[in-house]
């Protein structure tokens, strides 16, 4: 086994063995606590610029299958695991993890104490790191990590967004929510996506690094989906004559994409808007709220979020390093008073039960809402899939 090192900017070094494509890579090191779903994580464009440590020690157990990708390829800067499985076992498996990483030129490392790395990141914060199969000298590699550019203020979206608009047709198919039976969110015989008089609702989806499963869920709702590049102006989006605007997830700092914030500011009130993750942060900035970087982010599939309106808890899939600043909010507290913004009142709707971070908001005076977490799951639980139905409701109201 070829040796490899992982060095963090603060000087911490882990020695392991090489995984994936040979070489050297640099990125912000984060950890993800999901026990399944590594393939979705690998292909989630939101990880652009980051190296992901999986806290679960066995990764690659069920191999790689063409169905479970969230985009055309893995985007992350590096992959860190305790043990990569060389002999996957699943009826859908086509490749091993190592083969897949090699195919896509992703540099990884295995055989390190990922729990020690995770506690380190938890205590000292996410930071830049370097994985190297080539240069094993700790001092040099640490220096490279220190010299790596910070993720703050960087536009990583432009690296992952689509080049030109396209239509998305695919639904979740046999993997749709509750495919084993009726829907787990209770929406049994819902009339999906009936778009009033004009047939199906037309949705323009801003691609800041959009995950396939968001698109599939939008199609499951019955929408006609057009995906547009992140740089699409508000006028260009309106020119497509959509019933609603969807703002996707994506990598990095929302302040790195001022053009998107500008477009959304213009679109607010013009069309119903639904944002997820980076899309949520962009709505926040467009509304005049602030965003900030979390110490080590939320990355996992077990994050409890309290819906302040129903007081119900949903277990959510999360992947964010930044968050909308919420002021004094407590998850256990009653529903807080709305914030007043240039765009009217904004209600905090969802908070993290782990650390009270803002996880969702809704404009009270115009049709827009957003969540920080991932109702499309993939990976993760389907508890929040109701949020897609809300988009239908919002557009139905807009038509009425």
């Amino acid at each position: 086994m070829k040796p490899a090192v992982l060095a963090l900017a603060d000087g911490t070094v882990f020695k392991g063995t090489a995984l994936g494509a040979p070489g050297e890579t640099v990125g912000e090191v984060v950890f993800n606590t999901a026990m399944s779903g590594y393939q979705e994580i690998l292909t989630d464009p939101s990880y652009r610029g980051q190296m992901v440590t999986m806290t679960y020690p066995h990764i690659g157990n069920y191999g790689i299958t063409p169905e479970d990708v969230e985009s055309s390829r893995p985007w992350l800067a590096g992959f860190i695991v305790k043990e990569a499985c060389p002999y996957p076992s699943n009826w859908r498996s086509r490749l091993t993890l190592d083969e897949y990483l090699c195919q896509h030129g992703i540099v990884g490392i295995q055989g390190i104490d990922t729990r020690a790395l995770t506690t380190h990141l938890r205590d000292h914060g996410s930071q830049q790191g370097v994985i190297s199969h080539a240069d094993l000298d700790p001092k040099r590699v640490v220096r490279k990590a220190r010299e790596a550019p910070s993720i703050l203020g960087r536009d990583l979206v432009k690296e992952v967004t689509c080049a030109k608009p396209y239509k998305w047709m695919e639904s979740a198919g046999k993997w749709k929510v509750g495919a084993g039976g009726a829907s787990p969110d209770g929406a049994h015989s819902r009339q999906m996506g009936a778009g009033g008089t004009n047939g199906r609702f037309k949705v323009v989806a801003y691609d800041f690094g959009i995950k396939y499963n968001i698109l599939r869920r939008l199609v499951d709702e019955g929408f006609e989906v057009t995906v547009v590049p992140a740089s699409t102006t508000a006028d260009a989006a309106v020119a497509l004559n959509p019933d609603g605007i969807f703002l996707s997830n994506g990598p990095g700092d929302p302040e790195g994409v001022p053009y998107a914030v500008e477009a959304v500011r213009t679109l607010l009130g013009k069309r119903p808007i639904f944002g997820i993750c980076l899309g949520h942060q962009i709505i926040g900035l467009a509304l005049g709220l602030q965003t900030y970087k979390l110490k080590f982010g939320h990355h996992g599939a077990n994050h409890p979020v309290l819906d302040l309106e129903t007081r119900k808890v949903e277990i959510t899939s999360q992947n964010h390093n930044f968050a909308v600043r919420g002021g004094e909010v407590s998850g256990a507290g009653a529903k807080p008073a709305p914030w007043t913004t240039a765009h009217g009142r904004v209600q905090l709707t969802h908070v993290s039960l782990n650390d009270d971070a803002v996880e969702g908001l809704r404009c009270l005076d115009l049709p827009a809402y957003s969540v920080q977490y991932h109702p499309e799951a993939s990976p993760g639980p389907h508890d929040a899939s109701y949020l897609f139905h809300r988009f239908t409701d919002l557009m139905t109201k807009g038509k009425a």
Partner: protein
Amino acid sequence: MPKRHDIQTILLIGSGPIVIGQACEFDYSGTQACKALREEGYRIVLINSNPATIMTDPELADRTYIEPITLDVVEEVIKRERPDALLPTMGGQTALNIAVELAARGTLAKHGVHLIGASAESIQKAENRESFKQAMMRIGLKTPDSIVIRGRVETPNVVDKIGGFPVIVRPSFTLGGTGGNIAYNREEFEAYAEWGLSTSPVGEILVERSIIGWKEFELEVMRDTKDNVVIVCPIENFDPMGIHTGDSITVAPAQTLTDKEYQLMRDASLMIMREIGVDTGGSNIQFAVNPMDGELVVIEMNPRVSRSSALASKATGFPIAKIAAKLAVGYTLDEIPNDITRVTKASFEPSIDYVVVKIPRFAFEKFPQADPVLTTQMKSVGEVMSIGRTFKEALQKAVRSLEVDRYGFEPHPSLAEGDPDEVVAQIRERLRRPDPERLWHVADGLRMGISVDEIYALTKIDRWFLNQMKDILAVEDQLARAKHPLPTPLLREAKQLGFSDHRIGELLKVSEETIRRLRNDEGVTAVFKRVDTCAAEFQALTPYLYSTYESECESRPEARQKVMILGGGPNRIGQGIEFDYCCVHAALALRDMGYETIMVNCNPETVSTDYDTSDRLYFEPLTEEDVLAIVDTERRAGTLLGVVVQFGGQTPLKLALPLERDGVPILGTSPDAIDRAEDRERFKTLLEKLGLKQPASGAARSVAEAVAVAASITYPVMVRPSYVLGGRAMEIIYDEKSLNAYVGQAIKASVQHPVLIDKYLEDAIEIDVDAISDGRRVVIGGIMEHIEEAGVHSGDSACSLPPYSLSPAILDEIRRQAVALALELRVVGLMNVQFAVRDGIVYVLEVNPRASRTVPFVSKAIGVPLAKLAMQVMMGRTLEQIGFTAERTPKHLSVKEAVFPFTKFPNIDVLLGPEMKSTGEVMGIADDFGAAFLKSQHGAGSFLPMQGRVFISVKDKDKAATVPLARRFLELGFTIEATRGTAAYLAERGLMVDTVNKVKEGRPHCVDHIKNGEIQLVINTVGDKVSQADSASIRRTALVQNVPYQTTMAGARATLMAIEAGLKRKLTVKPLQEYYAVGTKYSEERA
């Protein structure tokens, strides 16, 4: 939602005695529930017939009824205590079934008792196979095709309707799959269907399409009143469908499901919870997945806390029972804090960054006639759990936790011999029929070059697991080819794969100590990681630890005065919950005294492995290597005052000497004293010194020697091989012919393996004494008179405290001898002595200077927590300081009765002997012996008749003793039928008895009568092996037909006394708190 204020008193039902399928996991859940609900200010009324539980400690509930768990008794308790609510989900199938029946009877409605945790309707829906299947269809989920049969098998083509053989027979409302089977042909089907119908309390079975070989998964689910649902843990079975989950090796989390597949299963679980209507609490849902195409079917759900929830709790750190109890009284998941992180809430799904492996432990060596092939009916008696950073590490740790004298994947001895092709053929055959040794068979197969694909085809164990084992064997091969001293990288790799020093030493042909020294020299030492529910995302404040070989250690030992308690390991026959009870008491006592307590154990079913029982919990194998690693770590800060080995049974005791050698202080009685009591020669000398008697004995290295020894000490004799423990292969022999057979063929006595021969004291009364000593003073805890005569293993006998037939003079002599033994052995802590009394002479049979199986029973009987006091004594307090200076003889009578697993094993005889066979015990308490014995029988599930017909067939020696017994039965209005010899003997003495044929005498015979329900009580004693075999069907039929039976005269006499008591007056119930004052009299403030 805050807790409910409309209820004040909650009735909690325990699960009764430990049986296969229902073990101490329900003590764990019940104890958690008691604590959680009392913390909320509720008044708790508890019923459980099992005295060896922590939950029945009188401090844990406001009212503790150690009474039989029967409808009448529970109703009596309800009348007396007027509870507002009944929580039926903590006591296994027992509690659930009773709750359903109480609801059906109208008892709950009549007394205004609300079911909380699960409604009668949802229990019915989940437990009734037909309604469950319909419910699943309603929500669009698949279940295996099946047909429900009630009462009788009528339709001959049932099997064709669901697609032909094989089919699975599953009885409704039974526990641990009792009565379940896989039928491969019509003949088997008819037999299994009939047996299944007889085991189902509602006479219903489900005949199901076989999906043997599919992958099996379990999800542990929690739901609250606000419809918040979380999955605590997905568990994947190593063994495929076809082997009961309780007998399966299981792994957490699931390993081979993609996220998409897992989420479908999760969605299905949420829908099932909602459809079945489990509003509050935990459930366990089982799924099967077709390995070829991922087809998902639902197998079953348990709407209650289960064995798997205990496992999931220990595997994740999420305390399911405690939280389920809080949910039952109205809290929601987001209102309950996560104890381990203390900053997050219970409304989340644990993420784990390690692998957990559970391996069941079996006891087939106790039942040689039983079929060891694993099927849909549970046969294991205990389990171990282990935690490692990888599956390989966890698997190898679990293997050595089992205590089956395996430290890795040692090859089968046959591998070294014979033709390799033949060996491979044998392995294939073994792989085809899964048994408790299947892990080793797989290893042998891989070793002999059978491919992973072929092993998969033979076993349907997922290739992922097989490949993991292949990795282990590859390193084993490297080790076998390496030479000592091992290069450090290979040593480290082997340790990371979970190899024990013992196994590495074996492969390198050096000692375990040599490997340990090499490791210490090279710095290859274990580090400890924390179980934190969150994969390190938040800081864990609870020190729940496991070992691994990585870079960072999180043990952070405290600078305190600390004491380590070694637990009992997996439950097995002879070492079960009683020892866990003692370990827990030791921890509680130490905590009261202000010491830091460190618990080491590997049994996930127990209270001792609850993270709040001690200050620090190490979930680790109980081997020398693993315990020493903890000792080394804990010694880095503070002072390790010593290790407690006398509470956990044989397991920790075996470690006493190695630990002492390593300079670890052993608290209490010295290992040398323990050795003096256990070593045959030293013990003989000890008794001679004290002038005490023991039955004559000798050892024989050949048949001739054996014959000579037996002749000199006179028949009958008790014989056993010298190299086995726990009464195994022990036999009572009446003549030289049988002795020849035993010594010559069965055991093959030799110079290396002598046979031990003791005089068997026929018809002697056996006595157990538990005592406590501080080294200067000895106080008797309790004297127990066995009901069955000496020769029946003490763990299998019923017993009475105080004795019911012995004279004060004899009792004083017993006390004198016990005290003399304790002082001579300088016992500090607990001691148990077994005596036999015959013709007014007291013989010492055995001395165990440690906690015995009877400690919890005695403690409950006399109202003194002996184990706690013993722990205080071991820390240097005197009995005087504690305030326990005189024996307490209660006015009430307590009877302990053993409970047996005979119903689980068709075709085995129920006769009792020197080899222990019981899995659990119950206690009956009343003001007189008869009533207490009657309660103990009810508790054990044997309902003695108050009228009807008694069948008697006894050996010649017992005939005289039968006369007064039979006379009394007749006086009480019973009729009697007896086999020819017995009947003639009784008739000659003027008793009116009918004669019935023995089985071999032609029909109708006595077994026909038992089957027809004409017999209400069977009294059957037998002598030699031939007559045992002749009459086995009588006892077996009585067992299957649930007709009470006694196989000893002493048992028959006690039964008569119980019936007399039952006829005299109705049984009453009374809580422990009314038998004696429960208080802090023996607590620390006295010191």
